[in-house]
């Protein structure tokens, strides 16, 4: 085993283990911390794929921004941290996820890439395996070449090239703009209603206190005018 294979195995075990912890734990905060471990493992995979740019971007965007956002949300929704980890359809969800994994594995996994399906009766009807591998009907083959040293510069030029990715680049910039404005709007939308509700609660509490001071003559909460009257009596 080469050192890269050992690193890959360690990363794979860490990522899959941490991901399983994330989706099964009852403590949401620990789940968020384990999610950071998953993101770090993905950055390690990108390094193994000779893609330093995306490894750094992964650390900056996922760990630096998205994990922090998630941890903020976990902290802001206190009382929800310790929770019931599963809902009623958890068993069905586990079966569905396992079935999907098996399906992916059969379609595109090592079986598809190494075993000749044409010898197996049912699978030969489902999957066409030739010596030239296909994804759908598109043939593909290994490039077997190193990453060009200028791949970052090439990528940057492709993003601003009108014949390549300029339009999606602009659209995604517009999406980020709209999302930032929308997120701010959503997060502060409830504030006036909340303030009104808080004031109403405070007023009701004052009215109850005033009623308690007067004795148990009127058990139901007092109307607004009566509350104002009691406050003037106090002075």
């Amino acid at each position, binding site marked *: 085993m080469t050192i890269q294979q050992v690193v890959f195995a360690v990363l*794979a075990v860490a990522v899959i283990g941490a991901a399983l912890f994330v*989706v099964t734990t009852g403590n949401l905060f620990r789940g968020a911390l384990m999610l950071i471990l998953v993101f770090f493992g993905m950055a390690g995979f990108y390094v193994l794929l000779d893609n330093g740019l995306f490894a750094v971007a992964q650390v900056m*965007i996922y760990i630096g921004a998205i994990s922090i956002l998630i941890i903020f949300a976990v902290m*802001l929704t206190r009382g929800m941290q310790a929770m019931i980890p599963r809902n009623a359809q958890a068993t069905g969800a586990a079966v*569905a996820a396992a079935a999907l994994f098996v399906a992916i594995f059969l379609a595109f996994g090592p079986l598809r890439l190494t075993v000749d399906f044409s010898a197996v009766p049912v699978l030969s009807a489902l999957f066409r395996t030739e010596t030239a591998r296909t994804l759908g009907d598109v043939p593909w083959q290994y490039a*077997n070449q190193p990453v060009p040293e200028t791949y970052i510069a090439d*990528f940057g030029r492709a993003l601003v090239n009108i014949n390549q990715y300029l339009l999606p680049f602009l659209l995604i910039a517009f999406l*980020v703009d709209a999302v930032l404005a929308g997120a701010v709007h959503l997060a502060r939308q409830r504030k006036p209603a909340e303030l009104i509700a808080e004031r109403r609660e405070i007023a009701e509490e004052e009215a109850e206190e005033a009623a308690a001071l007067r004795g148990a003559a009127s058990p139901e909460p007092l109307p607004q005018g009566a509350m104002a009257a009691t406050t003037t009596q106090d002075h």
Partner: protein
Amino acid sequence: MQNVINGIPLWWYLFVAAALFCIGLYGVLARKNAIAMLMGVELMLNSVNLNLLAFWRYLAPGSQAGLAFAAFIFVVAAAETAVGLALIISAYRSLRSVDPEKLDQLKF
């Protein structure tokens, strides 16, 4: 073998990505907390990115298509998290809960 880079065949990456995607799918379907469901979505998006970059490295390292798709997924994931968490916090303010089963009103 020509399909091995750094001693690792392509299907190792595909295996990890498929496992991560299915774990994320389970998380989205089986969780009782909206933030935990969002974490499952993040796992799925990460697995897709790993798939894209693995195919980029093994099949077309000279082209920018895989990089561009992966970069756009990064941005979409960040945007989705921002909006999702804003929605969750907004709902939490009104309902004092992040259980998606309690979010059954169109207006509150």
